[in-house]
Every structure is written in C-alpha cells, then in structure tokens.
C-alpha cells in the first residue's frame, strides 16, 4: 500500500503578494495586473510505500520542505493530486505550537492534540515523553524558563512519541548536542525497524545514508533522481563537489 502518492503535483505562488485592499485596487486600476508565478514544485509524481524510509535531499530552496508539506496535506497542491493513507504526523520545526506560558507538561498535551492525539492517549505516553526528554525536574515550570535545547528535546520527544503510521521530519536532525542527536537518530531507526514509514528532509547526508533505503534528490522544484539511497546520495555528493570546484 502506498501511504503517500503525488500525481503531477505543482505548488506555485505569486512572486509578490497583495496584502491590502488598497493595493488590490491600485493594481487593478493601473493595469499592472498580477505578478508572475513562482513554482516551488513543478509536476512532481512519486509514491511512497508503507514501511519505507526515504530521505529527501537537495540544495537550499529546491522545494524539499514544500514537498514534505504537500505530502502532509498542509499545503494544498496548485495542480495535481496528493493522497495520504493512514495517520501522518508532520514534524516540521521543533517547538512549533509550543506555548511559552504553559508548563512543559501542558505543552505535551497541546502538541499531542495538534498531531491529532486524544488527552487519554497522551496521558498514557506522558511519562515516557518526560523520561526521554530528560527534563523531568522542570516539567511543571512554564516553557519560557526553558533553554532552547530543552525545548528542542521536549519537542522531539513529543513528536516521536505519537504512533503515527507515517512520520515526516523536516531538518530536525541538526538540533541539540551530539549526544541528543544520536539519541534522535536511534529513535528514528527504531521507527523504521517497527515498520513505520519515515520521510526525512536533511542536509546531513551521513545519517540519511544509514537510516534510509531510498533517497529522492530535488532541485528547482523537480525530482532529479529517485532510487537507492546509497546511489542517489553518492551522485548528489559528486555533483555538489563538482559545483564547488567549478
């Protein structure tokens, strides 16, 4: 079963956005019309099978995050069709939806709810989350008293405690200290072993090589290569270093 399918998906934006009524009227009257489209994704088709571990690589601004967001259903496609099957948990930016005035514990429940989990199911996971985050002594203090690292640890713990069938991770491997990072990687590896589908966007190629069986290389809104992780990452590396020396 495919958990994610993109059929000819494009995502486009106006290069300049109109934000006020005045601007709309002025533009309409002056005959300048609308600004041209910018394509963040251009006619992308792909399917991700249940249980796959997929890495998405590419230069900055290639459309990797947009791809992940369309797959999560956060951004609707401007053209084409996106299909998801089963529960999908997007982890786009650690700390999203964290509320400074609420305590760490309250934030666990709030974030769980954002990912579609009930209070009861979060209650049964709270201890494990607190344990994994390693910030137990501060869990009932307001989040504004936390350090950035503590927030990141808590956020990762919540995001990965949800037993979604598909988990989408955007650039979150680069947070925290080395120890925490390896802890995160171990956790993602466990997801993969347990048969969840994992899609990871990252600039860090080494962890992707060990985690993922498949890699998709994206550039300028299009898929450049899609295949075995080792091959695609190797090709991407060679091209990047060639571009550097050129």
């Amino acid at each position, binding site marked *: *079963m495919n958990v994610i399918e993109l059929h000819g*998906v*494009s995502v486009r*934006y*106006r290069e300049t*956005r109109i*934000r*006020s*009524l*005045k601007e*709309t009227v002025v533009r309409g009257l002056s005959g300048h019309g609308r600004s041209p489209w910018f394509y963040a994704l251009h006619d992308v088709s792909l399917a991700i099978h249940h249980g796959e571990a997929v890495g998405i690589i590419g230069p900055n601004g290639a459309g990797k995050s947009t791809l992940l*967001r*369309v797959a*999560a*259903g*956060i*951004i*609707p*496609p*401007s*053209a*084409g*069709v*996106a*299909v*998801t*099957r*089963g*529960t*999908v948990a*997007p982890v*786009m*930016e650690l700390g*999203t*939806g964290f*509320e400074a*005035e*609420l305590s760490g514990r309250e934030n666990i*429940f*709030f974030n*769980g*709810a*954002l*990912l*579609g*989990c*009930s*209070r009861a199911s*979060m209650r049964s996971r709270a201890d494990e989350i607190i344990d994994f985050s390693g910030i137990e002594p501060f869990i009932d203090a*307001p989040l504004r008293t936390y350090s950035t690292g503590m927030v990141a640890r808590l956020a990762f713990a919540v995001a990965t405690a949800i*037993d979604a*069938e598909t988990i989408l991770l955007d650039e979150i491997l680069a947070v925290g200290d080395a120890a925490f990072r390896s802890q995160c990687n171990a956790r993602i590896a466990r997801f993969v072993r347990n048969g969840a589908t994992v899609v990871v966007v990252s600039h860090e190629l080494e962890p992707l090589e060990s985690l993922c069986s498949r890699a998709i290389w994206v550039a300028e809104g299009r898929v450049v290569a899609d295949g075995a992780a080792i091959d695609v990452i190797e090709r991407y590396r060679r091209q990047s270093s060639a571009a550097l020396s050129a």
Partner: protein
Amino acid sequence: MSTSVIERRYVAGRPLRWREELRDIWHHAALLYELVHRDLTVRYKRSLLGFLWTMLHPLLLMLIFVVVFSAIFRGNSPHYETYFLSAYIAWNFFAQTTTNAMAAVAWNGPLMKRVRVPPSIFTLSTVVSGLVNVGLSLIVLFTIMLVVGAPLRASLWFLPVSLLLVGIFSFGAALALTAISIFFGDVREMVQAGMPALMYLTPIIYPLSIVPERYRWLIKLNPLVYIVEIVRDPIYYGIVPAPRTLLVATVISLGSLAAGWMIFRHSAPRFHAHL
C-alpha cells in the same frame, strides 16, 4: 488505531469534501479542548486576579454604561441594569468572537503552516471560549439581579437555546470575516472600527420603542436586533421569545452559518499563501 485506513485526497483547487472536513474536525476534538484551555488560561495566567478578569473586564464596562444610560432611560424601564446587561452579554459575545477569531487565525498562522489541522478549528475554539465567558458573565448577571431584586424567572430555562443560536450566528459571521481577513489584513481594522457603530444601531442601551415608527423597519434590517432580543426576552422580560422572533432568529443564524462556512471552505485552499 482504527482498522479502516483513513484516506485523504487533496485535489488542486477543490476544498475537502464535506464529510471529510466534518470528520477532520471531529478527529481534532482534543485540539479544540486544548485551544479553549489555552485561550482561557494563558490570557490570565500571569495576572494578579487571574481568571476573574474574564468577568471583571465586561463588568467594568457594563458599570459605565449602566451609570451613564440608566440616568437617561430611567423612566422607561425598571431594572435598567438587567435590561442593558442581558442584551450586552449577547452583543459582547458576538463582537468579541468575530474580532478574536480574526486575531486567532493571524496568530496561529505559523502553526497552520507546520501542522495539518482543519483551519476552521481556530474559529470554532474562539466561539467555544466565548461561550464559556458568556456563562461566567451570566453568573455575574444573576448575582446582580438577586442583589437589586430583579426577578429570576422560569423562562431562564430557554436561555441555552438562545445562546446556541447566538453561537451559531457568531460562528458563521466569524468564519466569513476570518476568511476575508486572511486575504486582506485591513478587514480586521475595519471590523474593529465598525463594531461600536453597529452596537449603537442595535437596541442594547435603548429600547426599540424610542426609535420613531417610520425608521423602525430600517433598524430591524440589522440581524442583531433578533439575536439580542432572544437573549433579553427570557432574562429581562421573563418570557420565551415569540414564535415569529424565534423563527427569524433561527433563519438568520443558520443562514449566517451556511454563508460563512461556504466562504471559508472555498477560500481555505488559498490560505497558506497568505498566512
């Protein structure tokens, strides 16, 4: 985990299907609870009087209106404070809900770009928090009525029906206004500026009877006349609203919901580019 696999199809230019959308909101019931909880606690957590502000803020405003206007309209109605407050609570709920809903979507914009939640949930949560505040305001109002000796009558049982209609009406209006305000930021300012004017065009501080007969039909074009009346009737007049009034209020509320829902639904696929 459910046994049947939830499939979601996002087709370019088409909003989610009705059924999918309703199920999606239902699926996020826990989020609705958390949003309301956050609304009510965060706002007051660091303040000295805490949760009491929910009640004290409208109460202080009410006090000013009552002092100023009971002097003017004293002759007309006994217990002017009850007359005024019963309508003002309904009005205040409407005004707060619509302006807060627009702020909530702007405020939660970054969130909507990172997690997949039904966008209407933020509007819905504003309505629910507003209803909680109405409940608290009513407790205050009933206390005042007891103190000044205004009668608490059996017709109060009808109040939940009235509040449901007020809630539906405000939800519809809030959906439409939020959708528009996402595309045009100035709408928020316009609504905020227009609200006081709308309040004076609604018989809240004055009775409809002081409006000259010739212009009364004009005032009655304002749907809030009925929305306010169905709340004032059971509290102040001690009666269940007349069938005609009730019918008009129901039609207005459901019409507002249908229109607001449609506007919101059809603009939702384009929200993300404007948040």
